[in-house]
């Protein structure tokens, strides 16, 4: 039973037959799977296979982008995300970490405190607690505790990426989506962040989009392969890597024969 941890947990995100279009051009279609609580759900696939578009859709980024639209149904906590009347409250429950670290032009402290501030937390004591907790959870506190007032953009790439994670955590999300977080990060930091994710999994669902097949193998409970805008396969990560694949393309991709 331990190999199927997700089965015991309630469903967090239900995705059924989702297709994403930009200016009428379909970039992703036929996406159907569930993400459970306390699960790391890996999404792998080559560039331009629709992975990032999927994350943007879940976060309803289509609202501000008139070129983008999606069909199908996505339920978060059992509620259709289209029916979410206050999209900002939806986004607050879903943290996103982008491929390139985005240190907003603010201090380290303000980067993390921004979301709580926007949510109306004004007391310095409360903010201090949130900032310290989030930085600690992102394994960054020890490195930056003496330079909270320096600009976030002055940190190293790996530190900035962990700062981004800390910022995503600052709003206490129920789900965390990471989009190829290790692109601009050295291997040592990558391993540290992976350890962080394993800890975070105890508290939330995680969708991990990655270009590293081995990263999905190390972290994900289940993995989906996106290829040229379609979902080729969704399965238990252990199964996929032990050869229990249903589609030959999955095997080819995992073996590094293309992509």
């Amino acid at each position, binding site marked *: 039973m331990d190999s199927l941890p997700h089965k015991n947990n309630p469903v967090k995100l239900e995705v059924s037959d989702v297709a994403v279009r930009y200016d009428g051009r379909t970039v992703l279609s036929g996406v159907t799977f569930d993400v459970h609580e306390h699960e790391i759900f890996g999404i792998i696939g080559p560039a331009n296979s629709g992975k990032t578009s999927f994350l943007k859709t879940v*976060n309803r*980024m289509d609202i*501000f982008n*008139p070129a983008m639209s999606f069909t199908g149904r996505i339920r978060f906590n059992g509620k259709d995300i289209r029916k979410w009347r206050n999209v*900002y*409250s*939806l*986004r*607050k429950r*879903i*943290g*996103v970490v*982008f491929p*390139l670290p*985005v240190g*907003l*032009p*603010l201090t380290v402290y303000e980067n993390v405190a*921004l*979301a709580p*501030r*926007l*949510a109306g937390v004004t007391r310095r004591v409360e903010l201090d607690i949130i900032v310290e907790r989030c930085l600690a959870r992102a394994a960054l506190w020890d490195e930056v505790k003496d330079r909270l007032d320096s600009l976030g953009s002055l940190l190293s790439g790996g530190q900035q990426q962990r700062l*981004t994670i800390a*910022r*995503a955590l600052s*709003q206490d999300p129920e789900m965390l989506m990471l989009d190829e977080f290790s692109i601009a990060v050295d291997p040592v930091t990558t391993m540290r962040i992976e350890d962080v994710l394993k800890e975070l999994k105890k508290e939330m669902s995680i969708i991990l989009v990655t270009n590293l097949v081995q990263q999905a193998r190390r972290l994900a409970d289940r993995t989906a392969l996106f290829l040229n805008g379609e979902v080729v396969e969704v399965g238990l990560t252990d199964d996929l890597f032990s050869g229990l694949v249903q589609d030959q393309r999955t095997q080819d991709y995992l073996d590094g024969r293309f992509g």
Partner: protein
Amino acid sequence: MGQADSTSATCNTDDRRNLAWFIDKAVQVLVFIAGISAIVFIIGIFVFITKEGVGFILKSNYALSESVFNLLEDQKMPEDQLDAITVLEGKKFSTAEDLLKAVEGIIGVEAAGPYKEVLIEKSHDQPFHVKSFFTSPKWAPTSEIKPVYGTLALMVGTASVTGLAMLIAIPFSLGAAIYIGEFATGRKREFLKILVELLAAIPSVVWGFVGLSMLNPLIIKLFNVPIGLNVLNAGVILGLMAAPIMTTIAEDALKAVPDRYREAAEAMGATRWQIIFKVVVPAARHGLVAAVLLGVGRGFGETMAVLMATGHSINLPTSIFDSVRAMTATIAAELGEAAVGSDHYRALFTLGILLFLITFMINLSADLILRGVRKE
């Protein structure tokens, strides 16, 4: 030996200066001349203005003014002698000795003897007084009796019009920049950008015309004031003139903020309002300040529209319905009338230096602020 010769022969045929080489040289020379001449012209103009203006500031001469005549009368100079030297009234001498000699030439050395002191010490006449130049509201350069060159009213006139213009232009242009840069998309955005740039290209005399013939009667009717050519009129016109340029620069500043900042804030659940005011505007603040400063510089330097819309009357305004006169408009209106080389003529150049210094400071600070942006 023979082989070496043939190699060098091929080298020589390859090593020809062809057409491309000559074109390249010619273009280099042309560009160099154009660049250098621009700089030379600017320096030349600067030197010309400074020479005339500084000449006025440093000018000191000796003349028999009314006060000197009064003093001579007090000292009991005979009537006939006084009458005789009135021919020298208003005539300027570069040294006191020259003046004395001229007087002596008319009434004789002996007769002039007792009045030597007065003639030398009291005849000094300096048209430029630092204190009155900056603090006197009276600009009367053509006065027959005593010309006064006070620029206070002109500076206040320019500043009040520019200030009001900025009160109007800043909210409008920042609002427009935020709308175009952050909200408008696709064709609407392109259309608006073209429209704003078109507005920026409207000649200032056309704006002046609008102020004179449209805003003037409107202000008279709306506020029931006797004259519609005043600070309000010029402020509105100048605000409308400066807004398009400020919008364009402010919009560029907003565009320079990377989209990933917006996406990051958006993913965090920030509303559009929060994204713009907590993330985008702070990130673009240098560019926005520069946009405002360039607008202020434009306001100070604008001539034709303020000449037509301010009412052009020397006045320390107490309300926005008072007519004023701007520094630029004064130069434009009076330089053609002033005799070349006269005090009036030179005083206008001094006014030009003052104006130049103010706009230079404003533009320099805008530039420094923009540079600060690039360094970050």
